[in-house]
């Protein structure tokens, strides 16, 4: 695969060993933005794993829904509106997991 300007030439073998060149107009904006988002994921993921490893009381989670910004706080029910404290027992440390190690390995700043 060769990037020429805003085009990418894809070479593939078709039929009986015949080499076919297909020009695909993958725009430069796509080539820049998508890897940057992936890099952001790796950077923040590795940072989160580091924070998680240095402070066992923090639980690494992809915060979704009504998770409050202060760690350990979440709403048990929308109706009751009573925040409850998450248990810190049995929490796996992200740095010990395969994906945690992968993030640390992939991030150039770690």
């Amino acid at each position: 695969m060769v990037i020429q300007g805003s085009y990418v030439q894809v070479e593939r073998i078709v039929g009986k060993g015949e080499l076919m060149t297909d020009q695909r107009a993958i725009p430069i904006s796509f080539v820049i933005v998508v890897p940057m988002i992936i890099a952001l994921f790796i950077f923040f993921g590795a940072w989160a794993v580091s924070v998680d490893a240095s402070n066992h009381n923090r639980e690494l989670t992809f915060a979704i829904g009504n998770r409050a910004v202060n760690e350990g706080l979440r709403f048990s029910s929308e109706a009751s509106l009573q925040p409850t404290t998450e248990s810190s027992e049995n929490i796996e440390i992200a740095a010990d997991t395969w994906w945690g190690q992968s993030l640390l390995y992939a991030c150039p700043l770690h």
Partner: protein
Amino acid sequence: MGTVALVCLSFALKKCECKASIKKGKYNLASIAKPNLKTIATRLPGGVHYSWVIVGILATVQIIGSSIGMAAGVVVAPLSDPEGDFGWSIRTIGAALMVYYLVGAVFAPVSGWLGDRFGARRMLLAGGILYGSSMLLLGIINKPWQFYLTFSVMLALTQSISRVPLMAAINLWFSRRLGLGVGILLAAGGVGMAIMAPLVGILIETTGWQGTFWIIGSAGGGILILLTLIFRNRPVDIDIQPYGAGPGDPSVFKMTEAMESLRIKVYNQHIRRTKAFWNLPLIHGLGCAGHGIILIYSIPIAVEQGISLISAAFILSLISLFSVGSRFMTPIMAERFGGKPVMVAALFVQGVTVFALFGASDIWMFYLFGVLFGIGFGGEMSAYMVVNRQYFGSGPIARTYGFQTMGALAGHAVATGLAGLVIFVTGSFGPILILSIVFSLVGALVVLTLEPTHQMLIPDWEESLPQEARYNRTMTAASSAD
């Protein structure tokens, strides 16, 4: 009993299609060169074109389909309630929601391909069966893996079908006024969200978990399956031309299955060679990442400012409500003024209104934000069908639209995951607001790099087809026959 009914229904559908094919000379190209204009449309009251019936059907599909998305938000509380039947952790539920987005993203192009290959009508039948069975099963779950299967996989597939082939189907029904048709569909989706959210909440309160999803599944699935009786894939299936087709437009007619497949293949090959094919999913992804962060975190941000959860939840209602107007108007404006400036404007409004959250402390500020952000949010998602028409013409667009939906759902997955990580490491909502603004404004910048929307990018794609597979050839034949 239900299975028998479905088999009978499938058989009836197939029988109708066979009869229609034979009647209209599906396998004899010469006999259908001149379209029969004695149509079902002329028999509708007031001379209403059948395209508007299709809009009504697809709008109903969007309303029912939107209940899946709303269910995602509403089910968090009962599933996580430690005193309820489930008591699952937020992490378990959150991971299920993320899998839901990812499955939807991966399946979107596949459902588009299926729509092009088998037609939207069969997809509607499949969607109805899948919707009904998923909701019925969701009603009897008691373990997380069952929730993953029914919600994160089965309902994600259903959602994908309703959002891709059943949205793209409208493209074939309109030669003019596509913007109005799309606007009605998208506005219906917005109204559906506004209706279904409280409805699901009330049902859970009154009938419980099982009753809620059995009622929704039976009613929604039943309606979708019944609608297949009056739905048709294309105008030519009932011997009419698309709405607004004039004498200068190529006549559309039925071809053999092999010819149809060839047309779809060549059309998509031409689309894949354009830069817009790559840029449109990217823009949709950035736009969705931009508003996805706000949809998830605007309530926690307001709660952190001391506003009650019930008052804060009204922010989302305002966003939904005010998005209905821009969902309706954006495709119409895109058709009139070109999709590019409208998309830039929508993404810009979506991005800059987020600045208001930095200084928001009183409830009225959050509500004002909800109103303004809703306008940009509704506009961001609504121009794609019209832009597809402007760039690629009126071909089978489901596969391409599937890739754009894939971008959108991937954007939501990014918003869900990345924002959670950023909050975790920084302990603040500020950085994710900046992230949202950056996503929206970068999306607007990428739109600026698109080609002008007033010219088709693949005007000569039919020249790659053999003569007998072209619609333009028929127009010449029909003219000479007249």
